[in-house]
């Protein structure tokens, strides 16, 4: 029995791995601590020497290195190191040096091992596999906002009630009464025993009233004549929230749910009410009620308020990104409607494209407008371009007034280069993919995230099919894309109130978009192109990538967690800026981060850094994918 050093006990109590320990365990740890002082510049442990103790920094600062001598981490008061060596072969894995005069508390290996094995909180806190810790963080968060992040499939209570398209109105009415439903899915008559039926349309109580009875048609009218064809539908893995926006946008109260294009259920607006997030619905409906650009511009405050409320409600980054994208999309759609009212109907069909973060549904409030116009192949500049130029100006100017700053890279429909007929777009993509150069792809990467907002959106599907066909397995193209995806790297982590770079330099702030979310989505895009994924959202792309099994086991989930965490911090920072009345941006000062956020961000940066190395390895020029 030895006597207690109160200073040691009180110090340990203040720091996360110990704070959660039961008092008795904590005292036991405190009684086991030995102490050592290191002058600035002296080596604390060497690579390969026996790992005898776990080190906690009592005061001063310590630098941890990789075996190859590059900086791995920089720690200050309350930081700890040496767990990796203790848990693996009991040899020091990362050499450490005192950066300042440093006092260390040494916890002997047996005490550390016992704590690690018997105390879950402690093990979670010091877990050496950075990714595991982030996973735990993210799953705790996901539990917390389960309601906000639920997908449509959770709402499906029963299999859809279906009827073949050759049935009559009276068959439909009887079936609906028998089943007690207010809508029926109408499907192609399946060829006996072959593929499951494809959805042809929907029929509701209302259709029977308005399209049959009121029109005086006979009860034996085929359902195909009174149904709504090609109804709006949702995919089973879309968020509940997105389904709600769909209903609102299209003014329907029932939505068929599809999985691989087959109906698996129907959801009604009433099903959604308990998941409701009125905020963005309110903004979207306001957008469509506006009669002028002035009216739209006046909604900027509502958009920001909606963003802030979603953050307060603990919505996931995916949900916020998608809500902001829907709002951005609605602005574009309404502006295009207003433009067509003012300029008259378009001389040729066209499609308005959203690019970049909006196409990926990862938009936040600080965002450029990245857009383009795809025109009908009959387009003749001399005859038609005056109209489309005016249309583009109307929309882009309008967007700028609504808070979407003009794109510094000139990726806007007002730029004649990005206002071209479909065949020219096909040529652009073919050139980018078939004759890639890092420079040409640097400017064009943004076009590989594209979404049709208005007009002939099927052209976007055509372009996307072309991209997938040409890009998949194209080693040269993928190598160029991969090279560009490595241009922006994450920092190493945080030290005191600084951001630490891998070469040891310090800075006072970090741009979380440029150093975090952007390189993550760049990297995910390369893998998505490599496997021919048609998804646009980074999380969906990741799911495709995980399914394709091209990443080392577990790494896909790590990337998911890293993206979610960095996005969350970025979003919260913007919400804090808004609350403080500052113009939000993507720059974060370390002093505004909690210890927990610093630790988790560093974990995310490590994952990004590892993933970039893997990307570089996987897509080497000349290597066949």
């Amino acid at each position, binding site marked *: 029995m030895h*006597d207690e050093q*109160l*200073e040691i006990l009180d110090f340990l109590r203040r720091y996360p791995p110990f704070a959660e320990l039961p008092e008795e365990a904590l005292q036991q740890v405190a009684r086991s601590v*030995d102490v*050592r*002082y290191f002058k600035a510049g*002296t080596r604390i442990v060497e690579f390969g020497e026996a790992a005898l103790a776990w080190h906690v920094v009592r005061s001063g600062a310590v630098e941890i290195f990789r075996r190859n001598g590059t900086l791995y981490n920089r720690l200050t008061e309350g930081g700890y190191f040496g767990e990796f060596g203790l848990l693996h072969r009991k040899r020091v894995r990362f050499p450490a040096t005192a950066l300042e005069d440093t*006092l260390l508390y040494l916890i*002997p290996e047996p005490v550390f091992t016992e704590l690690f094995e018997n105390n879950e909180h402690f093990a979670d806190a010091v877990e050496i596999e950075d990714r595991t810790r982030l996973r735990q963080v993210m799953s705790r968060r996901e539990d917390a906002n389960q309601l906000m992040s639920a997908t449509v499939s959770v709402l499906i209570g029963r299999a859809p009630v279906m009827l073949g398209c050759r049935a009559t109105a009276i068959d439909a009415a009887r079936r609906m009464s028998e089943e007690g439903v207010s809508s029926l899915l109408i499907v192609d008559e399946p060829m006996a025993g072959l593929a499951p039926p494809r959805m042809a349309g929907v029929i509701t109580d209302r259709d029977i009233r308005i399209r049959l009875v009121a029109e005086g048609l006979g009860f034996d009218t085929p359902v195909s004549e009174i149904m709504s064809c090609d109804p709006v539908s949702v995919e089973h893995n879309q968020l509940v929230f997105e389904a709600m926006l769909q209903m609102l946008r299209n003014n329907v109260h029932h939505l068929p749910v599809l999985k691989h294009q087959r109906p698996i259920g129907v959801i009604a607006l009433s099903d959604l009410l308990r998941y409701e997030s009125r905020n963005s619905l309110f903004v979207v409906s306001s957008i469509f009620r506006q009669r002028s650009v002035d009216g739209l511009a006046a909604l900027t405050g509502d958009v920001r308020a909606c963003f802030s409320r979603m953050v307060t409600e603990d919505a996931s980054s995916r949900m916020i990104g998608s809500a902001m994208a829907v709002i951005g999309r609605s602005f574009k759609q309404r502006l295009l409607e207003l433009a067509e009212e003012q300029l008259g109907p378009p001389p040729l069909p066209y499609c308005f494209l959203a690019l970049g973060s909006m196409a990926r549904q990862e938009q936040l409030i600080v965002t450029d407008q990245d857009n383009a116009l795809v025109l009908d192949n009959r387009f003749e500049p001399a005859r038609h371009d005056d109209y489309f130029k005016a249309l583009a100006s109307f929309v882009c100017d309008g967007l700028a007034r609504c808070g979407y700053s003009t794109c510094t890279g000139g990726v806007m429909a007002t730029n004649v280069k990005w206002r071209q007929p479909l065949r020219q777009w096909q040529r652009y993509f073919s050139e980018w993919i078939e004759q890639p150069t890092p420079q040409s792809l640097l400017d064009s990467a943004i076009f590989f995230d594209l979404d049709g907002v208005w007009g002939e959106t099927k052209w976007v599907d055509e372009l996307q099919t072309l991209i997938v066909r040409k890009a998949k397995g194209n080693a040269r193209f993928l190598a160029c894309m991969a090279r560009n995806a490595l241009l922006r790297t994450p920092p190493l982590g945080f030290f005191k109130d600084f951001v630490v770079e891998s070469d040891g330099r310090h800075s006072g702030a970090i741009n979380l978009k440029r150093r975090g979310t952007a390189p993550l989505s760049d990297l995910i895009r390369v893998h998505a192109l490599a496997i021919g994924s048609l998804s646009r959202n980074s999380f969906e792309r990741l799911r495709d990538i995980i399914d394709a099994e091209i990443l080392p086991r577990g790494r896909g989930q790590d990337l998911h967690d890293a993206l979610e965490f960095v996005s969350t911090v970025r979003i919260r920072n913007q919400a804090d800026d808004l609350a403080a009345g500052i113009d939000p941006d993507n720059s974060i000062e370390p002093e505004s981060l909690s210890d927990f956020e610093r630790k988790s961000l560093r974990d995310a940066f490590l994952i990004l850094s590892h993933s970039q190395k893997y990307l570089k390895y996987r897509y080497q020029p000349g290597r066949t994918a």
Partner: protein
Amino acid sequence: MLHLGSFQQLQNQTASSALASAETRDWPARFRELAASARDHRLKAFYSAGVASADTPLAAVPLMALDIETTGLDPVRDGIVSIGLVPMRLQRIRASQSRLWIVKPRVPLVEESVSLHGITHSQIESAPDLIDILDDFLAAIAGHVLVVHCRAIERQFLNGALQARIGEAIEFPVIDTMELEARLHRCKPPGLIARLFGGRPLPSIRLAASRRRYGLPRYRLHHALTDALASAELLQAQIAHRFSPETALGELWK
């Protein structure tokens, strides 16, 4: 340890002894003499354990940080209330082997010192007399060179307590971290300019201030174990900055 009114005098004693030529005492020989002459069997055992010789490199010396909390500063009128020990080597402070004794002084407790040490009357009322723990204490420090901050207090009080209880004095070598600071900050007489203009006040060589200079954390002092640990850390820092593991023990001890 206590920092009351006459602390300045103790510091001055320390400073002046630093100025005096280094004592070159042959402690192992002195211990052999004392082992022969001591009457008390506990003291005899303590001296018989011997002590490192002056030429031993610091890295090889078993050290023991010691702090004594007392009811006041007068070794005659005041008594010891607690003793803290932290064994150490140059490479590591064995805080895990810390020992603390609370003892009942033979003089009444003054209110202010009670609050300073965080030791209550009832703890002291139920504590043993120093004589009852003397065996344990001497066995713990035997064979070690003691490390203290301000050796006058520890030496005088231990001496006084032993004189009163067993009628014998005790002698031992110490490394005094305060004296090591004094060497740095108090040994040069102020220059002419400094004397003319009053100069800068001398840096404090008290424990907290000395620790701060080496980047050591702030501790809540005046607990025997905390102070012993604080002195132990200070010694490691002083050696790391100003000496080396090969430095001979004789350069530091008194």
